[in-house]
């Protein structure tokens, strides 16, 4: 996956405006969406005639047509920095919201030429979010709105054929190790390490462990340390170094080193709590923070989101921010369902940059899916869940909602042979 990951690596940090990102996204997906729309509404739209697919501005009143553009959702509850800034500054900050959606939400579709308000019951049924590129079939109503009859997304992209693998070979997935500042790593974490190293359990488990080819750590290896401002504390003017604690990072380094040095390769993805930049795509953790693990050639620092190919099986994973943010836009809490949606949208993180912060790319949108992965996992979720999605062109995708290890003690093993997937549980109470 060198090309897909290559785009996720930020070469030059230049902070420009975001308009280009939306533009290249629309440009990158328009043809696919158009294609899908023409197929889906073949009986209604005659291909390549003037009134089939229009620029939004060219909509003619009352004529049924299909338009393609970027979704924008106007949501009253969406965090708004203007409110934060202009709000009386003595009022306490409002707590972050779990959901942005409300009954007043409005949908717009926008292209380079303009935007139009979408109306229709179908909009709320499809879990649509800001930033998605889609086609809508409908007509302009007398109020100047666009009445939507049907919606079409780009759909699943091409998937390379599943390789034939005869032996069991596992990829281990873990997320949310959450090493804290105070305690030494939990017992379950040590058990997990020992298992991976083949030092735990009976022969069955040891046999299983020996067939693991790679461990992917999907973010949040460290705990989110909130610095609580203490008003009562005597203010020290100047730099205060007492708040820094190097222990968690040190512990993580040791664990990773322990695993890597036993020849199990590790791909370390950063997550929202890890010491990397907050913007998506998150860049690999710099080596100096994990000096011991870095000594091992089996240790790879990678981006989030992350694409990789193992023996011809394509993996796509994120540390969870993408789906967490999408979930705020819709009432649906089924994370697998939302993950599936991103496949149809062909976009890993459509809510960037509106509510999910990302680097302002100019020439390409690295979150566009150019191909369909075989395995698609989302880290740091509440619970484990998995399913297989079948596409119209024989695509088959294993979706995994990967739970946080520190909360569930679960890691997930995926068998490359048949994409079967199951959890391994580690619990110190046993």
């Amino acid at each position, binding site marked *: 996956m060198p090309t897909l990951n290559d785009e996720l690596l930020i070469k030059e*940090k*230049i*902070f420009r*405006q*975001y*308009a280009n990102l*939306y*533009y290249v996204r*629309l440009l990158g997906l328009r043809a696919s969406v158009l294609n899908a729309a023409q197929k889906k509404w073949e009986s209604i739209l005659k291909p390549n005639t003037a009134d089939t697919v229009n620029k939004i*501005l*060219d*909509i*003619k*009143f*009352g004529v049924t047509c299909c338009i393609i553009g*970027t979704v*924008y959702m106007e949501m009253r509850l969406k*965090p*708004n*920095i203007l409110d934060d*800034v*202009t709000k009386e*500054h*003595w009022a306490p900050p409002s707590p972050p919201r779990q959901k942005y959606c409300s009954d007043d939400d*409005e949908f*717009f579709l*926008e*292209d*380079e*030429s*303009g*935007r*139009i*308000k979408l109306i229709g019951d179908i909009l709320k049924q499809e879990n649509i979010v800001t930033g998605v590129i889609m086609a809508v079939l409908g007509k*302009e109503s007398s*109020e*100047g709105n666009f009445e939507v009859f049907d919606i079409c997304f780009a759909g699943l992209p091409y998937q390379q054929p599943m390789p034939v693998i005869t032996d069991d070979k596992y990829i281990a997935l873990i997320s949310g190790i959450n090493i804290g500042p105070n305690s030494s790593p939990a017992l379950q974490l040590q058990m997990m390490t020992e298992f991976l190293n083949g030092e735990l359990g009976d022969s069955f488990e040891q046999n299983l462990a020996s067939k693991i080819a790679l461990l992917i750590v999907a973010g949040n290896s460290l705990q989110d340390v909130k610095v609580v401002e203490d*008003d009562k504390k005597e*203010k020290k*003017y*100047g730099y205060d*170094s007492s708040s*820094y604690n*190097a222990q968690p*990072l040190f512990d993580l380094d040791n664990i990773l080193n322990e695993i890597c040095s036993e020849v199990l390769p590790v791909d370390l993805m950063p997550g929202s709590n890890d*010491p*990397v*930049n*907050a*913007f998506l795509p998150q860049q690999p953790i*710099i*080596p*100096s*923070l994990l*000096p011991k693990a870095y000594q091992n050639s089996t240790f790879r620092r990678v981006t989030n989101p992350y694409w990789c190919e193992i023996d011809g099986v394509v993996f796509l994973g994120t540390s969870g921010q993408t789906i967490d943010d999408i979930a705020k836009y819709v009432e649906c809490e089924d994370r697998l369902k939302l993950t599936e949606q991103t496949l149809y949208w062909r976009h890993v993180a459509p809510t960037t*940059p*509106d*509510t999910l*912060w*990302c680097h302002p790319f100019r020439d390409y949108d690295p979150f566009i899916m150019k191909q369909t992965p075989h395995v698609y996992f989302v880290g740091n979720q509440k619970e484990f869940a998995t399913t297989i999605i079948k596409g119209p062109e024989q695509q088959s995708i294993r979706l995994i909602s990967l739970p946080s290890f520190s909360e569930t003690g679960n890691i997930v093993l995926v068998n490359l042979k048949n994409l079967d997937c199951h959890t391994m549980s580690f619990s110190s109470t046993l």
Partner: protein
Amino acid sequence: MDIQRSQPLVESTGKRQIWTRPSIPYINSEEHSIAFQQIELDECIDPYSASRSPMIRMFGLTEAGNSVLCYVKGFLPYFYIPAPNGFKSGDIVEFKSSLELALQHEISSGGRELLNKVEVKLKETIQGYHGKQKCPFLKLSFVDTKTLNIAKRMIEDGSFTYKSRDVGGITFESNLKYVLRFMIDCKVTGANWIELPPKSYRFCAEYERSSHCQLEIITRHDQFISHPPEGDWSKIAPLRILSFDIECAGRKGIFPEATHDPVIQIANMVTVQGEKNPLIRNVFTLNSCAPIIATDVLEYYDEGNMLQAWCDFVVEADPDVIIGYNIANFDLPYLIDRAIHLKVSRFPYFGRIKCTKVEVRDTRFSSKAYGTRENKSTNIDGRIQFDMLQVMQRDHKLRSYTLNSVCAHFLGEQKEDVHHSIITDLHNGNPETRRRLAIYCLKDAYLPQRLMDKLMCLINYLEMARVTGVPFGYLLSRGQQIKVISQLYRKAIEQDFVIPARKNVEGMDEPFEGATVIDPEKGFYNVPITTLDFSSLYPSIMMAHNLCYTTLVDQREIENLKLKNDSDYIITPYQSARFVKAEVRKGLLPSILEDLLSARKKAKADLKKETDPFKRAVLDGRQLALKISANSVYGFTGASAGQMPCLEISASVTAYGRQMIEQTKREVESRFTMENGYKHDAQVIYGDTDSVMVKFGVDNLVDAMKLGQEAAEYVTGKFLRPIKLEFEKVYFPYLLINKKRYAGLYWTNSEKWDKLDTKGIETVRRDNCLLVQNVIETCLRKVLIDRDVSGAVSYAKKTISDLLQNKIDMSQLVITKALSKSDYSAKQPHVELAERMRKRDPGSAPTLGDRVAYVIIKGTKGAAAYEKSEDPIYVLENNIPIDTSYYLENQLSKPLLRIFEPILGDKAESLLSGDHTRVVQHTTPTIGGLMKFAVIVPTCLGCKVPLTKNADTVVCRHCKPKLGELYQKQLATVNEFETRFARLWTQCQRCQGSLHQDVLCSSRDCPIWYMRKKAQKDVQDASAVLEKFNYEW
């Protein structure tokens, strides 16, 4: 607002929206009556009368929305003079012919009659009480106003003599304008309904028609019915309101000039009063423009054609009211000047009268209440102009009057602001960029309408016109006086009073003692402070003591008429001025006030009952108009430059006011004592104009309110009706800083406080930066609401420390001032800065009329503030250090000390010095003096020790173990900046309503504008530092 989101009423099928009014129903003048609401009145000469007599034009519209022009004929201008001594009714003929002769001598009339009529009327002058004796006056009616003025002059300067004697040199009611004279005599108020019964009018013949109005009718002054605005007749006709905005393609750095810079777009919205959505939305563009949803885009390739088309549009859409933002001084004059320049000769005819040219005049309007303003005025006959900028400036005191900040204030939303230097670029682009501009222009056209709806300005002004009886147009173009004059004449005519004409005297303000102030017992009161207010103090004094022109009596008359002190007249505290009591004669001013106040009471009572929101708005507007009008009566008698100043009245009013405040203090302090069985001795800690603050000594709100009620009733009993002392509120706690400066938590019930009330404390003054306002507000809240004095102190200290460490956002430090004229004699920071910016880049420098935003930067020692002003953007880009001590000493310290001194006493000074002021951080500028010679050496990120050149490290030897920590610290900074950057720029995208286009907005009034710019730079810089860690440690 979002243009694309609002709901058009007319479909966008490519067919143009319908501009015309509803068609007229069948009306037969023999059978049907016509009722219309007149909105504008003016005078003109009847072109078909042989004597060229004046007539009134009433413009208005019917309930069905048809426009009406009604000519009223037959009303002749007149004035009064006192009848010469010994004048008998038989002398009339002789008097008339001699005045006629004298007039003919002055005016070559071609033999037609000039003096229409001389009548003897028994009248009484309004000035002074002379025992109710009516005297004979001569009412002289003239054929036109010009003759009237000449006659007036001849009589006043004594050049006309009757029987070789001059006629006294005084005229009465001769300076009342013809239109107002007509309105008063025919009982027409501003914007009321006029009904023409069948047979009382006729339709104009085709040759008589002179206007674009749908109905053109003629009636006589004694034939129509003028309905007072009551009951059903208080309704408002469906006025058509045009809100428009123009854009000009200016040259870089020069404010658009009509002789050079073309008008490129005109956006229009026509709305029917009371309806939510616009009826017509269109934009006239020069050159092609991509379509806009639900809006007619009318493209023109020749500017002259576009202007003409706009004129035709206005005529066809026929708006009754034209609104906009700064249209009076910019948009309208610009359009007209531009049309002159382009020689579009048919352009300036968008008024309602077909052949009257719309022209621009310079006017100077000077009023005590509103200050002196130089304005341009444009006559658009028959259409009301209502410039929302002028309304805002009159009715609201704001930090800034840009459309953007006014909208942020009242509509709670930011508006995209495209700087005029970008406008030209957008215009020169392609149809898409012009569409972008058109959308911006449409927004600007729609905002004044929304602002007007939100603030109910039109309704309130209509009600004001009705209450005071002046034409609507006077409200924006004239001051307070004309409103009182109108009411005074209306009252006077009922009681056969005549009002002497006074020559306008300039200025000459004789100062007289103003309202009194009881010296404040400064301090911080942590007990309830009860406030007792006199409701409508000055009006009620005038009513209670019957103060009026007609009741003023001098010593000679008192002796003549044998009046007795106290039973017949009173002596006021001002130079023993004497007024007869109401039993002898009821004054005019008191009865005007009574009418106003009882009407207000009624409006308030109706308001309580009314449920329909639109009618409620009308009633609320009315009660407000009544209150303002009542208060302006006092001002009228005190305005020495006015038409009828009367120091005896105005000075007596204030003298009574002073006495009453002092008496209240005495009464309260002598009754509420421990001797009389109360728990504490009450103390009046402060009193001002119409209120006193009492400390009853109780520690809870319930008691304080109970005592307040009791005291109000008790003291009211000591005064004449209708003077009433009311208990309204309790402040608890209360911070009394000085005269007219205080703050307190405002309670009207003992359960929940209402608000934080402040007076005279730095908040809205614009030469303060926002930081001051925020700090003061927050400190006051902490002290008064949270009762946390130490919290307030530490907040103030933290802010000072943040300031000194450069942690305050730039937008908090920006000071703005308008660049109003080019030559200031004294050097001022914003003027100097504008000059310097012009040298740097003439294109983006502020021009005349722009607001200049600046911050104060570090300068050489002893440099004056005007040398240290700098453009905030330039400061951001070049890391120029802010002069934080200037902000501390010149901006923060005084207001802070002011509020903390009463609380902390001498300790307040410790706020400004101490530990928290020790750490100071400077930024290193990238330009300027010494920097040319400086060599930039990397320093250790841990301890700032200079590193050896080309060292492949970011820290020194000693800090190396701390690398991880330093990295994460830097990372945290970067992440904070990244989040800020993302949030700010995505917010701007949301605000501009487009994801695919770059944000252009340059609204400096927007609170996040500087932040946005700074976030971009901060994140870039911080990321660069972070990059340096990318080597193996």
